């Protein structure tokens, strides 16, 4: 094979990846949904027709109409605006948790895998131990200690979500550690911190990114769920789970919109993230394709 054909093959490999992603229509749909929700979150104040906490006793529990696209709640607040602001809350909590848990998981996972031996053993047993406690329980315990609120919520989800990333990062690192180029870099005097940063991290990143995308969806679901049972975001902040919990009592008397719209927003966001994550996984690791 001549050099030129090699280059061509490589170029086609890159475009091949793009093709995989684009040919998987669902992942494009997912990416679009995610993009739209991020836009909504950023542009929130411009999009919301009425401030989300503006109380109006003349329009209590109105059903969806021209004036209030998603209807109003028991204080006459505009549900459309509240759902838009809810995107801000959910996505920012999600981003914070995912970014920190990814960083934490990456750091601990790669270092643990690279050092190996008893330190690695100890850290991994600890990770197993932490994984044995469902996130809901962790959140309950923390909510008991610190009281509900965004801070509790974020910490609780951090505690239970970095472990997955750590496991993946460690697994990848373990196999990379055996690779020739790590040995070779040691041979030219590279310190372990250098090797971790320049040679292991770039290879660990793709699979970790996939898992972070998928866990983003989980974080949003959990945020909503914990706020729904009263140990997450507290009123009067607009948050999807909280809006559902406030509208819950009206479902048996027919005011469906209080529950329907925020839930729909949750479902779409999470679905978008899941589809996007699946698409990314297909690109980076075709073996795991479902």
């Amino acid at each position, binding site marked *: 094979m001549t*050099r030129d054909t*090699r*280059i061509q093959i*490589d170029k086609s490999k890159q475009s091949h990846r793009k093709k995989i992603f684009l040919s998987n229509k669902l992942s494009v749909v997912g990416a679009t949904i995610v993009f739209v929700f991020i836009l909504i979150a950023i542009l929130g104040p411009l999009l919301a027709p009425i401030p989300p906490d503006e109380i109006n006793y003349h329009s209590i529990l109105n059903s969806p109409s021209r004036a209030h696209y998603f209807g109003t709640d028991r204080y006459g607040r505009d549900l459309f605006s509240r759902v838009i602001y809810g995107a801000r809350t959910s996505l920012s909590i999600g981003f914070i948790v995912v970014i920190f848990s990814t960083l934490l998981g990456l750091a601990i996972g790669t270092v643990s895998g690279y050092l190996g031996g*008893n330190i690695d*053993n100890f850290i991994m047993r600890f990770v197993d131990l932490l994984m044995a406690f469902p996130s809901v329980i962790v959140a309950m315990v923390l909510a008991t200690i610190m009281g509900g609120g965004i801070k509790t919520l974020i910490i609780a989800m951090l505690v239970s979500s970095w472990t997955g990333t750590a496991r993946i990062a460690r697994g990848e690192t373990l196999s990379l550690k055996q*690779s*020739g*180029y790590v*040995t*070779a*870099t*040691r*041979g*030219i*005097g*590279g*310190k*372990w911190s*250098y090797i971790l940063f*320049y*040679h292991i991290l*770039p*290879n660990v990143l793709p699979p970790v990114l996939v898992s972070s995308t998928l866990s983003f969806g989980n974080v949003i679901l959990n945020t909503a769920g914990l706020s729904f049972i009263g140990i997450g975001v507290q009123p009067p902040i607009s948050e999807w789970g909280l809006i559902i919990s406030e509208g819950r009592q009206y479902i048996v008397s027919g005011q469906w919109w209080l529950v329907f719209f925020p839930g729909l927003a949750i479902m779409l966001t999470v679905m978008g993230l899941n589809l996007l994550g699946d698409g990314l996984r297909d690109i980076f690791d075709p073996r795991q394709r479902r």
Partner: protein
Amino acid sequence: MVKPILSTCKLKKLFPVGRGVWNKPKAYVNALDKVDLDIMGCTTFGLLGESGCGKTTLAQLITRLQEPTSGTIWYKGHDITKMKGRDLRENRIYSQIQIVFQNPAEVLSPRRTIDFLLKEPLKINKVYEKEIEIEQKIEELLDKVNLRPELLTRFPHQLSGGQQQRICIARALSLNPDFIVLDEPTSALDVSVQAKILNLLVELQQKERLTYLLVTHDIRVAEYICTDIAVMYLGEIVEILKAEEFRQNAKHPYSKLLIESANTECEEKDFDLKVLDDPPSPINLPKGCRFQARCPVSIPICSTIHPELKKISDGTKCRCHRVTDN
């Protein structure tokens, strides 16, 4: 008397296998057993042996990429065995002893450009202060290994095997080492490319006054460029002698078998030790001579007493009960 540039004393490496209760290893692989070597400056010392006999292990122990179980390594009169990462860096051991690996494709990180990979040793060891000096050095290195500068922007997999190995050689040279371990530098390459790389290595050795430890399982390669040859079997050195005497004067039955199989199979390009059976497991070593099970000329004492590496004549040593000086 001239002192060797590098010598090893009773170098030993065990690999634990299997983990039992409390992480205690179930058994050990005897990858390397009490290896004594003396390598003189500006020579090429060949290490010959079949797959799995511990050549790579020895190469990586000497370059301090693996920790020996016991034994010492002396480099220019310094004991470098006890040195840890920082000492090795501070005493510039990593720069002075370099290694070229068996498989260049595995050694070059797939996500980095050739440019990055070539600059890497210089940057890690902070050899130069200015970027322009680094650029100059890279140019010089590419010239030394006969590569064109266009390659710099490429990724490793966009290079041919021979080019990749040249890049590895350039990386090894960049720190101006005195001693280079070549771990089967041509075994992953086409025959036509092999010769080119070997010639390049010989040329470089003369220009830069380098000392080589060449690991190979190819007798012709060893004869072609080595000054001395050591034959290894199951982690032990079984014979050491001058390269030019190898074909005529090798005494050890294993060496003879190697020569014989090389002669009979030299028409085939890729000869290995196919005529021989598999060696015994390095986990459960036989009691007497390690070669006994396959030795065509063994005698009763071979199955009970482990032979020592004895001096036969000047510059020749052999580990066999049937070989004595006459």
